[in-house]
């Protein structure tokens, strides 16, 4: 029973992080109608930015997150402005392909620059944990969970309450009308993509503190982010929290009861099932 409780806790803590990973993908998808297959590669890149900040500048991975986010925002803004804005009106398949191509480029560049070794971001408190009755809460995972949830909720408030957030949502609903009200779409698309990538990068920084990273983690993280967006639905940013927790717990349970190699099978199996049964998401509106 203790084991089950611990597994559920671990799954939930991982799930918070998954939610944050998915948020950037869902935002870009919902507003720009681009399913960014390079999303996981940007998460990977963010993890390396954090790793380098920690290793060479000795900046704590949690305190360094704003720097990682700003760096990744700039990368995202540049990619959207320079490349993706050129194909925004192309057929869906072309946007999939081009982001797939970006994924390949980023992964190879990372392999050349960072080498293929497994790395972790190991702050001095990495091994610390809080014991709560029968379960153990690893400190780094707990912190990552807290930051991820806070950022996800903060993002939601930003989209609801601020002028920029409203402009982004307006563009998602109707590009032409938003344009008439003075939204400059080239800039706004780039800002939105930049925010999505900044979230991905920050999620990567957190991921690096709780898990091993290498240049190839991107593809699986893209698929998981996608699965979470689908499970949670694109209509409500808080849906990704539900989706993330669901996936994190499911993976942990599958790893415990079926075998560690089946964690991914479970999450992708659920993805396919949800897609087939309810493509608008478990929480989404009916089509």
């Amino acid at each position, binding site marked *: 029973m203790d084991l089950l409780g611990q597994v559920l806790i671990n799954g939930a803590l991982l799930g918070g992080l998954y939610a944050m990973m998915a948020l950037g993908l869902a935002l870009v998808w919902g507003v720009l109608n681009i*399913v960014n297959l390079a999303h996981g590669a940007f998460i990977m890149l963010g993890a390396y930015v954090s790793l380098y900040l920690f290793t060479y500048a000795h900046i704590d991975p949690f305190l360094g997150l704003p720097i990682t986010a700003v760096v990744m925002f700039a990368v995202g803004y540049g990619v959207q402005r320079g*490349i993706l*804005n*050129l*194909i*925004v*009106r*192309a*057929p*869906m*398949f*072309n946007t*999939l*392909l*081009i982001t*797939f*191509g*970006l*994924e*390949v*480029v980023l992964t*190879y*560049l990372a*392999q*050349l620059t960072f080498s293929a070794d497994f790395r972790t971001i190991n702050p001095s408190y990495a091994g610390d944990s809080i014991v709560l009755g029968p379960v153990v809460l690893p400190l780094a995972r707990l912190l990552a969970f807290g930051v991820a949830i806070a950022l996800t909720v903060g993002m939601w408030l930003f989209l609801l309450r601020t002028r920029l957030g409203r402009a982004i949502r307006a563009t998602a609903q109707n590009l032409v009308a938003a344009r008439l009200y003075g939204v400059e*779409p*080239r800039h706004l*698309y780039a800002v939105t993509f930049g925010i999505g990538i900044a979230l991905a990068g920050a999620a990567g920084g957190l991921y690096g503190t709780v898990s091993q990273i290498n240049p190839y983690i991107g*593809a*699986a993280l893209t*698929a998981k982010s*996608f*699965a979470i967006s*689908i499970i949670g639905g694109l209509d409500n940013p808080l849906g990704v929290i539900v989706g993330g927790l669901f996936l994190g717990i499911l993976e942990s349970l599958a790893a415990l009861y079926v*075998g560690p*190699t*089946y964690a*991914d*099978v479970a999450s*992708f*199996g659920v*993805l*396919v099932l949800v*897609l*087939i049964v309810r*493509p608008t998401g478990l929480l989404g509106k009916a089509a």
Partner: protein
Amino acid sequence: MTALRIILILAALAVLAAVPWFGSDVLIQFGINALLLAVLAQGWNIIGGYTGYASFGNSVFYGLGSYGVAIAMVQWHLPFAVGLAFGVVLAVAFAVLLGIPVLRLRGHYFAIATLALAQVMTAIVSNVELAGQNIGLVLPPLNNDRLFYELSLGLLVLVTLTVFWLTRSRFGFGLIAIRENEEGAEVMGVNTTLYKTLAFALSGVFSALAGGIHAYWVTFIDPESAFDISLNVKMIIMAVFGGPGTVLGPVVGALSLSAISEFLSSEVTSVAGLFFGIVVVAAVVLMPRGLADVFRRFRKTGWRYFAENIRAHRL
């Protein structure tokens, strides 16, 4: 014009068929790889190019074909041909069982669902004892590269003829109708579920055959290499670079990109992997309808062709 074109194609085919008799070992080995990739690109063309369903899961068929041959030859001591047939049966079964539910999805959803299927296959096969789990299987060696080369070329001809048949048959028109407007096709009496599943299976059959030939040629397979997702990247990029939905585009795309990639990897090793990524980004921006369309229209429009493509799709 058509007569000239047929003569040209036959001449190119004769040259390709003669390669094993005058080429070096390295050239033959490169040829086998390039021809099998061309088969994959052309197989993808059936479901992706003609039917308009962007499958990111065709590597599953390839892996099933590889394992069909490996299991039949290693575990059951059956001949190679039976193994190929077994691989085809596996691929068709997969296409029908998973194709029917997954093909109900459109656009992004279909693409990601197939990508997810491709990602779980490695994990599933790693746990199947018959398939040698994650250690893989070692096939009996057959040191006859000429045979493998001619087999691959034969398969490429077969899949290309099949695609050619699509351009002038009721079935092919049905697929194109589904690509252009699925509801419209349905209204006009096309049994869309049947047609899509058949196209998926047909695409799978050729990918499986390519996988089977490759498995026997390299004599070793494991789950990681058989269900390699980057193979999907390659086949799609090659088909799109050449021209999806055309008969010869994917073949030209596959052979030319293989040659460039091979040249790059011998000159500057680290750039070869990057190459495919850059090609697809540039191709989507500058020539989204592939080389075939460039050839058709470049004479009229000149360099403006590329600028017009950008203007048509930019924000």
